[in-house]
């Protein structure tokens, strides 16, 4: 990782990961304070995958994402103020309050759609790849989706067409059920699939596939780079499984800061990690990455803490902006039904 990224890039990646973590922690706290948000899904523990992969995309590339989209949008450069505003249902939101957390999307950043249907984003990503190929554009379409999607038929229909027509698509499967902490306690399900490992389902289609540690930016970066190069060179689609361990606070409907706020100092003072959550933080891509930067002397504790403080201050302002922003005119509910 550090051999490929210069210090500035390495710190920028950290900034993105922190931005996503703090954004969602802030959201959970805002909901706790009594502001209505509705049910939402968090990306905590998976930041590394989205941040590392999306950093490699070119401006013309397209992304389709899911109900767990905040991290992808922020990594692509979405303005946290407008994203918070969207989630809070405000007129200043990216979708004028009509999308909310489940459908937040930013077309200007290459987001086709955010589908809250399991599997819904996948054919859309393939469609974007089809369009790019037809139009002869040097554009890659990346579909982010969870491991549950491999249980939906539409995934196979989409994969088959992408492979058959060699479409420039990256299937980015974010498997956040790895090791499934909490699954045994019946808190949330893992994927229900008869294969030995998820990437087996792709094999018959002749699509190159690899499974990587989704909490290791170097690994994510390597496979994504290869996939993007293959797609741009006419080599067709690639399937990547990025494995992460689900964050214990990520309950199906109502996330809770059950681990407390992440303290970046966990990276260099592991004793500060609460006993109950040591396993999870030991796997946490963010804390691992901070430690790598620290060990490689790319950043000292002071710089990391300062960056974190800046991110938090910016997000606090963004949240204030969103809370104070006006709601849309109720009459606007009927706008935009047709193009």
């Amino acid at each position: 990782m550090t051999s490929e990224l210069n210090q500035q890039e390495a710190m920028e990646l950290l900034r993105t990961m922190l931005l996503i973590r703090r954004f969602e922690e802030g959201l959970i706290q805002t909901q706790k304070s009594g502001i209505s948000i509705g049910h939402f899904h968090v990306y905590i523990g998976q930041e590394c995958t989205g941040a590392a992969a999306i950093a490699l995309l070119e401006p013309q590339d397209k992304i389709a994402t899911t109900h767990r989209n905040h991290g992808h949008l922020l990594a692509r450069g979405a303005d946290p103020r407008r994203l918070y505003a969207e989630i809070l249902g405000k007129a200043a939101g990216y979708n004028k309050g009509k999308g909310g957390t489940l459908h937040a999307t930013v077309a200007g950043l290459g987001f086709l759609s955010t589908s809250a249907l399991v599997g819904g984003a996948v054919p859309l990503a393939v469609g974007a790849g089809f369009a790019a190929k037809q139009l002869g554009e040097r554009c890659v379409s990346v579909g982010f989706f969870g491991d549950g999607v491999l249980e939906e038929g539409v995934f196979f229909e989409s994969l088959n067409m992408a492979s058959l027509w060699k479409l420039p698509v990256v299937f980015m499967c974010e498997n956040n059920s790895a090791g499934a902490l909490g699954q045994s306690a019946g808190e949330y399900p893992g994927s229900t699939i008869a294969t030995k490992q998820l990437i087996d389902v792709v094999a018959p289609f002749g699509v190159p596939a690899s499974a990587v540690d989704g909490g290791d930016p170097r690994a994510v970066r390597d496979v994504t780079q290869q996939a993007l190069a293959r797609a741009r060179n006419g080599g067709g689609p690639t399937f990547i499984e990025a494995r992460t361990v689900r964050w214990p606070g990520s309950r199906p409907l109502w996330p809770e800061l059950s681990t407390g706020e992440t303290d970046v100092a966990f990276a260099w003072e592991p004793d500060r990690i609460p006993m109950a959550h040591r396993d999870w933080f030991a796997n946490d891509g963010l804390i691992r990455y901070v430690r790598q930067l620290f060990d490689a002397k790319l950043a000292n504790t002071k710089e990391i803490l300062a960056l974190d403080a800046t991110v938090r201050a910016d997000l606090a302002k963004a949240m204030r902006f969103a809370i104070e922003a006006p709601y849309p005119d109720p009459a606007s509910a009927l706008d935009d039904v047709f193009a």
Partner: protein
Amino acid sequence: MAELTYIEAINSALREELARDRGVYVIGEDVALGGPFGATKGLAAEFGERRVVNTPISEGAIMGLATGAAAMGLRPVIEVMFVDFITLAMDQLVNHAAKLHYMSGGQLGIPLTVRVQQGAAGNGGAQHSQSLEAWFIHVPGLKVVMPSNPADAKGLLTAAIRDDSPVICIEHRALYWTRGEVPDGEHTIPIGRAALRRPGKDVTLVATSRMVEVALEVAGTLANEGIEVEVIDPRSLLPLDLDTITASLRKTGRLVIAHEAVEGAGFGAELLAQVQEAAFDYLDAPIARVGAPFAPVPASPVLEQAFVPGAERLAGAVRKVVLGA
């Protein structure tokens, strides 16, 4: 009588039917874990995971599985987590479950129950808040019920499970934690029988699902203005108890129809057509419909509130029908 929440009433119907009939199976995503709203809580522990079956996220295959098993004589009850996701299972529901009895010349029965919840509540946005009952009442072979309170939730679900045709039981998410008296023990409500919720002589207000609550509120308000509203809850949209509605119209001569689904091509349109065919002579005023505006469900709390038909709009429509413009 016990006071139960709507979701507890559903749970109790499932528990009793699982105990009563070995052929009953509860199948769906996360049902062995209790489901996201707790409808199937405790059932796996009581009846085992052989009869309370967790599935992959494969709505199409789940509907097909349940239909095939029903064709063999089992009585599967499947849970589709949100009505928005039933789109993924429409082939099996519409082309197979609804038609196999007919296409086989009556040889195959499909005693299938589909439990699904819908409604705009909690800012879920356009893919978690729709009301799609009108799709299903357009399909011959399906039965469609929409319980509006805990007692009906239990009674209609029990009847659905015992029915030999596929029945879609459409629950409303916002009603899940409302409480009400539920008869103890076995409780069934015949499918196709409406309920008179409040008698009145001036206008008939037919409301479905959560709109029944709103209709009763409106009836209370308008009583203070001297307008006596008769509130009818059809409970079952297909088959529809038109007789109860026309009998009421004979008395009131006026009809307002309220549902949460978008107005266009909705249940209201169908009821309006049936009423004008069957009871035109009873009508003293044009029929009014109150439903959601023709738009996807927006996420923002403010927009969602503007979208869902509320008491004020409904009261306005009733006044207009009774008092004229």
